[in-house]
């Protein structure tokens, strides 16, 4: 069933056409990757879907409902969670506190004036941290964590709202290669198990071709190719403008174990 349908999204920054009539759809439990060079408009597209930016044109439908231009907080309540290219967390909070905060927000308890925030949703927060493998670090200030760990916590924060759709802008940027594979496997596992749709961008082609069900290629704000990893890999235009030689090799390498 179609979870997300994006139709003709367009965004202009002054003279730059950052997204030009971008259209795609995403099913429940599906992992859709957007790839493209820096400045292609990936983050812009994410931000229009995630409610951080208002599109100049086009529409976003979530499970059949028009959510175009709704703010991020409204989308969150409709089941859209996200992580950012530069991780956004609550720096003054502990790791646990970050997830507790997300749970408080999810349960609509942010206006309570008298209860003690530190003891609320502890267990649920620990459980979420456990899922992303961060339970052991629960008590530490988030500012002390390695960047890869911060990204995991950010995933736990996003999951706290029990999303149907996860938007992940470069989830593995700044991580060591081994960490990347582990994180993407974690995301893929959760997505398949809970039938969460995942839209993600990634520069690491190994990660993309290993986990994406389908791929969109965005260049200068326009989708120039789309399809299964095999189709995209084979597309000569994509090879020319983006993947180049090394990307093609990565694509070939990554696909083998899955099919093997």
């Amino acid at each position, binding site marked *: 069933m179609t979870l997300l349908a994006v139709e003709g999204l367009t965004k202009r920054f002054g003279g730059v056409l950052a997204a030009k009539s971008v259209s795609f759809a995403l099913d429940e439990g599906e992992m859709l990757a957007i790839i493209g060079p820096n400045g292609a408009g990936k983050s812009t597209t994410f931000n229009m879907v995630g409610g*951080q930016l208002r599109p100049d044109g086009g529409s976003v439908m979530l499970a059949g409902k028009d959510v175009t231009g709704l703010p991020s907080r409204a989308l*969150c309540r409709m089941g859209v969670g996200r992580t*950012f290219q530069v991780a956004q967390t*609550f720096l*003054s909070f502990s790791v646990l506190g970050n997830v507790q905060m*997300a749970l408080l927000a999810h349960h609509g308890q*942010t206006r309570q004036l008298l209860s003690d*925030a530190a003891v609320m949703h502890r267990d649920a927060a620990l459980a979420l941290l456990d899922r992303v493998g961060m339970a052991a670090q629960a008590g530490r200030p988030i500012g002390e964590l390695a960047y890869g760990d911060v990204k995991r916590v950010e995933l736990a924060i996003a999951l706290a709202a029990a999303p149907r759709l996860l938007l992940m802008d470069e989830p593995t940027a700044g991580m060591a290669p081994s960490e990347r594979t582990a994180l993407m496997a974690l995301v893929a596992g959760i997505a398949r198990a809970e039938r969460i749709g995942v839209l993600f961008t990634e520069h690491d082609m190994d990660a993309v071709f290993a986990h994406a069900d389908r791929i969109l290629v965005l260049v200068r704000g326009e989708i120039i190719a789309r399809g299964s990893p095999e189709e995209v890999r084979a597309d000569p235009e994509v090879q020319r403008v983006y993947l180049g030689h090394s990307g093609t090799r990565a694509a070939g390498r990554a696909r083998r174990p899955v099919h093997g």
Partner: protein
Amino acid sequence: MEWSFLLVQALSGLASASSLFVIASGLTIVFGVTRIVNFAHGSFYMLGAYLAVTIVPWLLEFDRSPTLFFVGVLASALVVGLLGVAMEMLLLRRIYRVPELFQLLATFGVVLIVQDLVQLAWGPMDIPGPRAPGLRHGVTILDQRFPAYELFLIVVGPAVLALLWLLMHRTRFGVLIRAATQDREMVGALGVNQAMLFTGTLFLGAALAGLGGALQIPRISANAHMDLSVITEAFVVTVIGGMGSVPGAFIAALLIGLLQAFGVLIFPKITLVLVFLLMAAVLVVKPWGLLGRPEAAAGRAVLPEGILDPGRMDWAGKVLAVVALAVMLALPLIDAYAVKVGTEVLIFALAAVSLNFLVGNGGIVSFGHAAYFGLGAYGAGLLVVKAGLPMEPALIAAPIAGGLAAALFGFFVVRLSGIYLAMLTMAFAQIAYAVVFQWVEVTGGDNGLVGVWPSHWAASREVYHYLTAVLTLAAIVFLRRVIHAPFGATLRAARDSAQRADAIGIDVRMHRWLGFTLAGAAAGLAGGLYAFSKGSIDPTLLGIPMSVDFLSMILLGGIQSVLGPVAGAAAFHSLKDFFLPLTDHWRLLLGLSIIAMVLVFPRGLAGAFASLRRRPA
């Protein structure tokens, strides 16, 4: 009205605008590079004028030539520039690492010190300066006479603008200033000697302020109040233009100069508020001023400056709290005056905690918190004086009045962030100030209203002290509780990352707005209690000095701590009370102690207490 008159009136406006721009350009450059809101800029302006009325007449003794006049003016500006360098090297350089707000407090300490030093050096009388030789006369324009010196001033503004443009685009120093204004981290990354850059910037900024002051001597006498009279207007120009933008300051100065020149024709009575209305309007429509840029987006990995971990109270904290409470309750054993001071400390403690609820917990730096304190006082006072109600309902009305005002202003305030937010709070506070100042029939104008005394049962100092203690402590405990509650955590979360807060479903503006309202209500209660402790209300309760006092209290106490502001209020108020009767130069001593505290306790008293306890035995 004839055209000739409108033309001359426009020229008057341009002359004021030009003078204002010279001053504001220095302020905006300093802010752009150092991010310091430099209250002492007005002091530099005043020093420029005082130096010029000393140097210029001395030079003119040799020869009454225009050249010597301008040599004197430039020399004054240069000397002030050197004073700026001194301030940078002796003071600011030591505190670049402390929270930005602390630097603001330090510059305010400098304001107090300069006020007294100027009076010591030049005496209390206003000192008239000489007119500029060759420019004494009036020039007839159509049928109107216009001062030649003002024609000259009209040219000065654009000339300074052009020179600054050349400096910014043709010299390495200027390029660095622009780079630092746009991205401070980048300058550090480029390996630029930051200390040299900042020293140079302070020289330039102070010299421009000094030039502005020195150029005024043919028009106004050097006087001890000129620092504060110019600083708010310079802030307004800087903010309207966009902080850090020199061309923006130029446009804003033009707008304000002309607005005033023609404003006096149409609304001769509201000149006080006209500029602040303009500033509020600009900020509501263009949140970063006319030519300003949004502040660099959050997402940098820097810890916020406010409360990091509200924490539990440990035993030392508890002991301290109990001792403080016992002292407060035992004050009547000392003497009647100690009770009086104690009552005021409690009231200011509540005001300070409510402000830190915004600043430390919410990252909402309000420069206008006194507005809600003062409106709370007026809410209570008007009920007593005008409606004849007793104290009890009036004290209920006080937080409602403060809260309603905060809800009204906060609706616009929470749309902004950072320094622009701070400036909008100041603009609203000035508008509120102007309203109570001008609405004589209702508020009694600047004379205020008297007769706001407690009910009979609470009339004695002691009973009123205990009443105040109960109410303020209850409110402080409540605010502390809220900081620990989900609502307080939500405000901290929104402060840390508004984007993340939004993405997890938090309506950031709504929560900030509610928080602003709550803090306004608490300040309003404090204001109501203050009114009954004094028996009168007047506009100084809403004034900028009062807001600065509150800021000083929370900074002295430590904005990282939930209860630090209580200690800050006690320390600040006791200091003031100690110095005030001691000598005429209490401002000098107060300023020096503020600076000493900033240097010795850069994280406030609470921070000092914490690190004392953490130090291994």
